[in-house]
């Protein structure tokens, strides 16, 4: 059966389709506004005429490629191409600004490919066991996971914790706009039809990251156009790579696990891994200034979620997120019903998919590394041409999402607000984190409280939920204590000096 699967995959047209998928995926992922979900959904009709293995592998190539591709624009122009690359901007962009764009891209490429490949092995060996475990996640655990994700805000807040918390809570409040998930009551919609489903976070993200950065670059564009980032040709060195291996492995584990949980995908995984990498690091102060671990953690994690997300899809037939839901559709079109029976009835297809997934991840490394020289050319383009182009792409990117011009206004307002936030030291990442996790936190909190008839003990009597909540509290308060402790020491030193 395994041999048959090999023959199914190692055919000229299958490999060709896979390469095509990965390259289009990378391109789609690197364009802000085009997400992995959209790429897979847009090209789904193309697979109708293909064989099962070819068709599904094309979409898998796009899915994996897009998740990686998001990091390219995150690193080069501070614009996460996909939501899951939002965490990558925090260290990727500073590193590129220091001239190490090549190194940054190498780290993200290798971390993505390695993370993705290992997660496929997880999928192959642990699919049945892990699937059982993830099924135990109910509302209480999902709420705890969301809170754990949100607790990271204090670590990514930057210079002022209060400002970070303010933008985080503001994001949570924005996330409550639209129909209430339990009762369907329209909240803060002001009678605007477009707000019924709440604010889509992708236009907000494009505005806060890309448009505001473009506005900011206007401040200096007429004065110092000559001062360009000098591109350092140095790539990733072996000792540096050795240093990030533990980060890649840890993030891969986290990513695979988070990918498995329904409704938590690459965006959650990348923020969680970023924070864990920072916590485990001997030099946490380097994070946010261009730490290699800060790039490799989110990138390994978000590509690892791909293998993780395939676990419930293939073994149980449950799509964990929007992309896998579209993939489920592709399976069904081919007459394959994912679930326990898929392994029994169509074993050769499953194995062919496993082999194809590993290949797709290797292709990411090959295409990514050979494309770096092409990608970094973006930095050579003078800001006078790049900035107007980015602004136009912001407009079309936020429009393309739902073909709705309302989203473009959302992007524009977020861009203006983001410009002033940046100017006065209010970080943008907590807003995005809150927009992603807010709805997950609220609906699961309320569902859990319904289950427990209003008792909060449900979060402490269930072991997984309780562990996650304790971790969240630790994550939330560690930076605070460290801050107070440092202040205390400083004051003590000052008084002794006097």
């Amino acid at each position, binding site marked *: 059966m395994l041999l048959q699967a090999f023959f199914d995959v190692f055919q000229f047209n299958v490999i060709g389709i896979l390469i095509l998928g990965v390259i289009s995926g990378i391109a*789609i992922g690197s*364009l802000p506004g*085009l997400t992995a979900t959209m790429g897979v959904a*847009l090209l789904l009709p193309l697979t109708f005429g293909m064989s099962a293995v070819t068709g599904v592998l094309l979409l898998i190539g796009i899915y994996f490629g897009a998740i990686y591709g998001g990091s390219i624009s995150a690193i080069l122009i501070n614009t996460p191409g996909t939501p899951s690359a939002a965490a990558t901007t925090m260290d990727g962009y500073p590193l590129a600004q220091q001239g190490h764009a090549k190194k940054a891209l190498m780290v993200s490429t290798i971390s993505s490919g390695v993370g993705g490949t290992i997660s496929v092995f997880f999928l192959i060996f642990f699919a049945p066991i892990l699937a059982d475990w993830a099924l135990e996640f109910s509302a209480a655990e999902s709420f705890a996971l969301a809170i754990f994700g949100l607790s990271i805000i204090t670590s990514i807040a930057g210079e*002022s914790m*209060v*400002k970070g*918390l*303010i933008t985080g*809570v*503001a994001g*949570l*409040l924005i996330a*409550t706009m639209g129909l*209430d998930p*339990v*009762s369907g*009551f329209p*909240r*803060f919609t002001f009678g605007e039809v477009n707000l019924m489903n709440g604010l889509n976070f992708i236009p907000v993200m494009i505005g806060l990251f890309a*448009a505001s950065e*473009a*506005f900011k670059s*206007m*401040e*200096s*564009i*007429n*004065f110092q156009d000559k001062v360009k980032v000098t591109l350092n040709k140095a790539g990733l060195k072996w000792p540096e790579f050795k240093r990030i291996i533990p980060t890649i492995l840890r993030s891969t584990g986290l990513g695979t696990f988070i990918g498995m949980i329904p409704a938590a995908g690459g965006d959650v995984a990348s923020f969680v891994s970023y924070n864990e990498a920072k916590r485990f690091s001997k030099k946490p102060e380097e994070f946010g200034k261009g730490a290699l671990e800060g790039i490799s953690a989110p990138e390994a994690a978000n590509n690892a979620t791909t293998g993780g997300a395939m676990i419930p899809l293939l073994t149980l037939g449950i799509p964990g997120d929007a992309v896998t839901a579209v993939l489920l559709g592709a399976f069904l079109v081919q007459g394959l019903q994912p679930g326990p029976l898929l392994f029994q009835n169509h074993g050769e297809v499953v194995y062919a998919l496993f082999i194809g997934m590993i290949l797709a991840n290797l292709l990411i490394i090959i295409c990514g590394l050979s494309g770096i020289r092409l990608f970094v050319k973006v930095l050579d383009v003078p800001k*006078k*041409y790049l*900035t*107007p*182009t980015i*602004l*136009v*792409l912001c*407009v*079309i990117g936020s*429009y*393309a999402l739902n*073909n709705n*011009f309302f989203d*473009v*206004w959302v992007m*524009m307002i977020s*861009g*203006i607000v983001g*410009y002033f936030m940046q*100017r*006065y*030291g*209010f970080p943008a990442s907590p807003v995005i984190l809150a927009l992603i996790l807010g709805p997950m936190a*609220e609906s699961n*909190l*309320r569902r859990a*409280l*319904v289950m427990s*008839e*209003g008792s909060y003990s449900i979060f402490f009597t269930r072991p997984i939920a309780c562990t996650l909540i304790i971790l969240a509290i630790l994550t939330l308060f560690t930076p605070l204590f460290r801050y107070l402790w440092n202040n205390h020491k400083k004051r003590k030193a000052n008084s002794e000096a006097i």
Partner: protein
Amino acid sequence: MKTAEQIASFIVMILAVAVYAMTLQFPSLEGFETGPAFFPKMLSIVFFILGVLLFLQSFRSSNDKLPEKMRDALIIMVLMLVYLYLVTLLGFNISTPIILVIFLAFLKVRTWYSYIALPIGVTFFVYLIFQVFLGVPIPEGAMFG
């Protein structure tokens, strides 16, 4: 920075009060422990406290002024608003080259061929990728739609 933080803290507090007031009008759910107001109300209280903390913190911030170079950024924002209005009116394919020429002129680009290459190149690239390759419609504008 100090003044800006104090203004920001007032904005936060006012927003928090406004959100809290709005949640008071949300209906409660029969048979459920928590209604639609539960989560936003809780958040608005936290938001208010954070606003107060920011206000207190602002006294420790330095008074020094930031270098004022906001003018160009503000002009670009206004130009972008004009652009968005143009897109709703004339559509993407016509407004984009127009606004790009204006941007280039504002940025004092001197090479004449950039005024042709960039506007046409960008518009064509977007058209090719979004409309032809991916089949995503681009805004057509009220005059043609």
